[in-house]
């Protein structure tokens, strides 16, 4: 069974991939998914944000990615990740290795971001085109979750800056880089999990479910 799976996935990888990337992808594929039934405190959430050349995942380019983890309630400086694809001009085996390194960093943990269609869209396309990987992580979308968790502060999907204002976070002046944005998202996520516990949403699985449900409900009703 395992052999067959390997065979199938390997078959879908683009042939230009260097051997070390193939080997690492294999390690990632066969690694166990992160458990989702632990309490938030014991769950490693990876908060991620990207920089792109425009808003459209189909036509614009992915320029950078910043991620940091929340574990044991804290944003961990020892567990952060930053890549600037523009330095390699978006080409070559260097980018393949950087994307693979992100998969190893994230280690199948639930991913937290703001607005999945944008962040997820760019990542999906990049992983598909470059590595032949169908990137389907367990997403938690703050854009949809915040209105349902903080209905007292805003009940529709709103731009991130609105929430930053509402929570009184210091976003600095001028343009934020991807890491500054990720760290703001991480802080919001910390606040959100405290709220979630108050609503008996105690585990990652429940949070992911809540995220899906709220986006489904809001889109369809």
């Amino acid at each position, binding site marked *: 069974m395992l052999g067959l799976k390997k065979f199938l996935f390997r078959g879908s990888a683009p042939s230009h991939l260097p051997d*070390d990337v193939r080997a690492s992808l294999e390690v990632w594929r066969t690694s166990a998914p992160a458990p989702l039934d632990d309490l938030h405190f014991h769950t490693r959430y990876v908060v991620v944000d990207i920089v792109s050349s425009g808003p459209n995942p189909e036509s614009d380019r992915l320029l950078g990615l910043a*991620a940091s983890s929340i574990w044991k309630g804290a*944003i*961990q400086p*020892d567990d952060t990740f*930053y890549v600037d694809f523009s330095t390699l001009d978006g080409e070559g085996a260097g980018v393949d290795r950087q994307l693979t*390194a992100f998969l*190893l*960093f994230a280690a199948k943990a639930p991913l937290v971001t703001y607005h999945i269609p944008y962040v997820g869209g760019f990542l999906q396309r990049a992983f598909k085109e470059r590595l032949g990987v169908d990137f389907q992580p367990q997403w938690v979308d703050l854009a949809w979750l915040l209105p349902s968790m903080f209905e007292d502060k805003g009940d529709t999907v709103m731009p991130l800056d609105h929430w930053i204002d509402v929570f009184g976070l210091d976003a600095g002046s001028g343009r934020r880089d991807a890491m500054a944005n990720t760290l703001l998202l991480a802080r919001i996520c910390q606040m959100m999990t405290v709220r979630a516990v108050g609503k008996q949403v105690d585990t990652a699985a429940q949070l992911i479910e809540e995220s899906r449900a709220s986006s489904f409900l809001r889109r369809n009703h």
Partner: protein
Amino acid sequence: MTTQQQTGQEQQQAIGQVEMSLRQDGRTRMAGNTQAFLRNHAPFNKMQPDALQRFAEKAKIVFYAAGSEILGPDSGKVRYFYLIESGKVQARQAGEVTVTEYSVLSLSAGESFPIGAVTAGRPSTNLYTAVDDTFCYQLPAEDFLALMASSPEFNLFCTRYIASLLDQSRRQLQLQFSQRASEQQTLNSPLAGIGSRSPITVAPETPLRAALETMSKAGIGSLVIAGEDRKAVGVFTRTDLLDRVVLADLPLSTPVSQAMSANPFMIEEHATAYDAMFAMATHGIRHVLVTDAEGKLTGVVSERDLFSLQRVGLRQIRQSIDGAHNVDALKQAAADVRQLSFNMLAQGVGAEQLTQFISALNDALTRRVIQLNLEKHNFDGIEWAWLAFGSEGRDEQTFSTDQDNGIVFAPPEGASVEALKQRFLAYALDVNNDLDRVGFPLCKGNIMASNPQWCLTLEEWKDQFGSWIRMPQPDALLNATIFFDFRALFGKHELADAMRRHLLAQTASNPMFLRAMAKNALDVEPPLGKIRDFLTDLEPGHPGKIDLKKYGSRIFVDVARIYAMASGVHNTNSIQRLRLAAQRLSIRSDEINAVLEGLNFIQLLRLQHQYLEGEPGTQGDNLIDPDKLNELDRRILKESFRQARKIQTRLKLDYQVQ
């Protein structure tokens, strides 16, 4: 392992390296984000870039929702240093004993906690609660300590903070003292000078309404009812108003004499405050009326008045010492010295000044005893001096100090040394006994001028010092710790100066001696435990206690003596010795100040213990139970012992003692 597998591993390592480097980039970016905050807040804005970077790379970010507890005494040993990024945190004193001035303190962005606890590696004494939604940077304790060790700016910030805690603790101690001091001081003061001198009175026939209006206007709770002859016939209080007027439905036109308590307790103005207190306690009353010899009202003394008495003055004591003509008069003065010392402690005088002050007044007492005895013994034409040794020699006397003294004399040419010595011994015996009666107990080790061993000519003293220095046997070293702290108290000071010059010259030419002294001084270590905070089983017969003299102040005193001798410092006082020696030996002043703070704190605790826990009239000891100290004092005591260990380590290195 096949070649293929090897290649596979290497390939993964290549990706591993990419991952490592991108993680490092992430860490650097996050640190940059944190630094942007740090740069706007003291003390971080003054820190060197590498220290700032270290803080930023290690600081986690945590969130506390409004109302949640961050840290408390029950959270165990503090593992993180917290710096508030945004929000508000309330620090509240836990437990019943207030160890700092504040009971509730509000902290906001840029402020940090719990500095004392994280430095000491102890649980926090405060309960920290988020008042608003709060984000904090959280630096692990080991990184905090590393930062304190490497960043002078951060270290200064933290030590200043801890010093302010020390200050608060000292003030707290003083509060305890002032309460105790005012209680004691009331005992012998005559009532004539206490309380209200012109009490408000009304005549017995005054209607209740008018009497109540008088009380209301003057803002007083009680009224004396007196006739025209100013003889009090009763007292009317607010309690009487309730019981005898309101509940008894008495009309307000009734004369006050019908509602007052008749036959009030009166006491003559020459009686003491103690009598008044005793009367209040016996009769369960809050006021006593004070009268003159004819029974006319002259004042009212309330419970509160007894706590705000005039204090015994320094000048009065000096005058009474200098004017004393017999031992009994000096005995009274000695009691006053004790009392005044307590008051000074209560008024905020630190241990250093206080021990010197006690020594100064004890010197005055001792000098007076010496002078009074010279009326019976005549040494005209002979150069001699009365020497003080040990703590008296160092100006470091606490409340419990016995005698350590000797005599040095220079026999005139042709005189019989032996005959002269006998005369000095007879004189010294009288002085020693009188000092004992005044309140300085005889020395158990017989280190007294009446002992022929310590009543010597200048040449004999020099020989004695010389032989101890040349042959540093254990008892010679022990003697050195007592006798080398000498000071002339009376007589020809030049003799003592000559002894000091000889001593310093001898030690300078015998390096082995100081090394032996150093080895000896390192025999006793501060009682810091590896697992527990304190070792409390060092004194057989006193389990659970620490001898603050033996394991505390003596360590500092011994080190001070050695450095003073090594650097040619003439002073005997340990603090002066350390300060001066530090200058000559180029020891950093902040380092030596921390050491002196440690010594001062231990001395303060000794004084407190001897006063608050000593039985009146007995000699206090130096045995304290660290469990009975409040959290803050325990922490500072631990830090003080660490300072003792630090200065010992320095001595060990300087003298290459294994």
